[in-house]
């Protein structure tokens, strides 16, 4: 090593061996990368190719679902179509150039019915999700933040939580008249609780975290604490719940329709379509009536599920490495 030392030492200009000026600001330069929560979230999300692909699928699907009626040559979902020649209903016509998804047993166009049903299901899911989020945040925040309310609500929660949601759902839909509002109401009542608990737990954990106490000590206004410290955590939770609300609502709707507690038959819904298709599934030529709704349902539910989870993962600060 001594050899090497000599070697280095020889090439150096002697004038460098004088004192340099001390620069205090240079000494404090940290140079950490600029971490922006949202930027990192988006970065991580977009790295997930599958999720991005599905996001595009969803966007296209959503757009199409609502644009579809405005396109030319679209049939009406509840209208019964007759063959102009025979004047008989176009029953159980296999998919052809006129009826892209075929018709059902009373002559209605399956293509438009499916899209109409999708619209209905999406709206139901969205409304339920919205309700969940609003009620969940409001009550959850109060529950978590105000210690006095905590005990009371916790006790109520403990009892309410033990009531199985499926049962309540069945009960409510059995009692109330079938309809879109009934479904939205029943699903909202049964789902808001878990969201509320989630929000409450988050608030409780975050409220007492040292950095929030520090912020309060420093006099940071509550509004800023909420937006800078709490919201990033809430966002991933909220996005996940809203994204999952759609497949959950569709699932519940199919379930209830199967038992006979879903939407009335005259409103096309994905649940109704599956049910109708089910009756005919044994016949090979009529199986398409089950296939199409099944494929559309699978596509929508998988897409929302995966994308919701992917976003929640991306929004989790621990994954921002």
């Amino acid at each position, binding site marked *: 090593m001594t050899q090497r030392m000599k070697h280095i030492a020889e090439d150096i200009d002697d004038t460098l061996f004088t004192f340099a000026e001390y620069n205090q600001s240079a000494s404090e330069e940290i140079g950490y990368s600029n971490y922006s929560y949202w930027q990192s979230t988006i970065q991580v999300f977009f790295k997930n190719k599958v999720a991005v692909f599905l996001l595009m699928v969803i966007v296209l699907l959503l757009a199409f679902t609502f644009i579809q009626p405005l396109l030319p040559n679209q049939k009406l979902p509840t209208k019964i179509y007759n063959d102009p020649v025979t004047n008989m209903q176009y029953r159980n016509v296999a998919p052809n150039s006129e009826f892209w998804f075929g018709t059902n047993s009373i002559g209605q166009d399956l293509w438009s019915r499916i899209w109409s049903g999708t619209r209905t299901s999406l709206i139901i899911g969205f409304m339920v999700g919205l309700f969940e989020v609003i009620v969940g945040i409001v009550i959850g925040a109060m529950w978590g933040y105000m210690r006095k309310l905590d005990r009371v609500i916790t006790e109520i929660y403990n*009892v309410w939580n*033990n009531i*199985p949601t499926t*049962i309540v759902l069945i009960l409510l839909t059995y009692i109330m008249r079938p309809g879109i509002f009934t479904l939205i109401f029943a699903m909202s009542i049964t789902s808001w609780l878990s969201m509320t608990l989630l929000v409450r737990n988050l608030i409780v954990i975050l409220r007492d975290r040292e950095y929030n106490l520090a912020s309060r000590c420093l006099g940071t206004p509550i509004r800023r604490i909420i937006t800078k410290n709490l919201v990033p955590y809430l966002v991933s939770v909220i996005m996940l719940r809203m994204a999952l609300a759609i497949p959950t609502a569709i699932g519940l709707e199919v379930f209830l329709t199967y038992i006979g507690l879903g939407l009335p038959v005259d409103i096309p819904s994905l649940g109704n379509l*599956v049910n109708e298709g*089910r009756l005919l*599934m044994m016949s090979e030529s009529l199986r398409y009536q089950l296939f199409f709704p099944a494929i559309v349902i*699978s596509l929508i539910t998988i897409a929302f599920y995966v994308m919701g989870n992917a976003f929640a993962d991306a929004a989790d600060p621990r994954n921002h490495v």
Partner: protein
Amino acid sequence: MLKYILKRIFRSFITLFAVTTIVFMLMRLMPEEGYFGDSYDKLDEIQREAILEGMGLRDPMHIQLIHFYKGLIKGDLGTSITYRPKVPVTEILAKKIPYSLWLGLSSILIAIIFGLWMGISMAQHKDRLMDGVGTFYIVFIRAVPSAVYYLFLQLYLTSWLKLPILFDVDEKASFFLPLLSMSLVSLAGYAMWMRRYMVDELNKDYIRLAKAKGLRQKEIMFKHVMRNAFVPMAQYLPTSILFAISGSLYIESLYSIPGIGSLLVESIQRQDNPLVQALVLIYAAISIFGLLMGDVLMAFFDPRIKFETQGGGR
């Protein structure tokens, strides 16, 4: 530990009581047609009122409740109206419960065994093929409404595997599809939770010490991680019981299994209120029991819980 279990059981009873009361009260809102069946249209207003009064349905709520609990203690859950007219509900239930019980318990067992195994494999082979395949399975099962694939399973597997479509007690082969279908959802659940918790545990400090000790990855997995992950697994048990309940509603109808699941579906379709009420209560009781089991198992696996004096909210 015993104290904890007793406390928990007591709590469950309170909850059961509260739930039963609430359900009962809610059920007073049931459509009145459900008490008449076919005769509804044939009777006029006065006759209907008379019948309802005779059933005690016009009494004030607290009287109705007392009546109900009195009957409950005696084992009387009312009489079926439209399903099997004049037959006591308990009699109908007694014949059907064994089927559902068998189906439910077996499917949960299968789900636990295969689900845990799958979750462990996925965690062990994280980000490799097994993990990918498993994830695909889990995503599919959790996203798509079960009604959809239950139908296709019945449709295709019956012809491919030459299985009978409908359930028959005497034909063992007919057991396979219903069991398989029932276990799918819970299997996915157990696999997902197991994998998640194993992965979480693997990031903890004590695993690093185990590594530093010189333990092989496999040893760490089995002796440390797996055992710890059973604790939150026990928490999933109540959910899988719930899935078994809702699943039974489908499966029993699809395969014509004479259990209480298909009974509920039928009694809803026929608007047989006493039957619907009794079934709802039974299912509520089962779920509460499931939650209790989950908590007890958790305490069994996690010694820290035994020492807590606070019961802890759920």
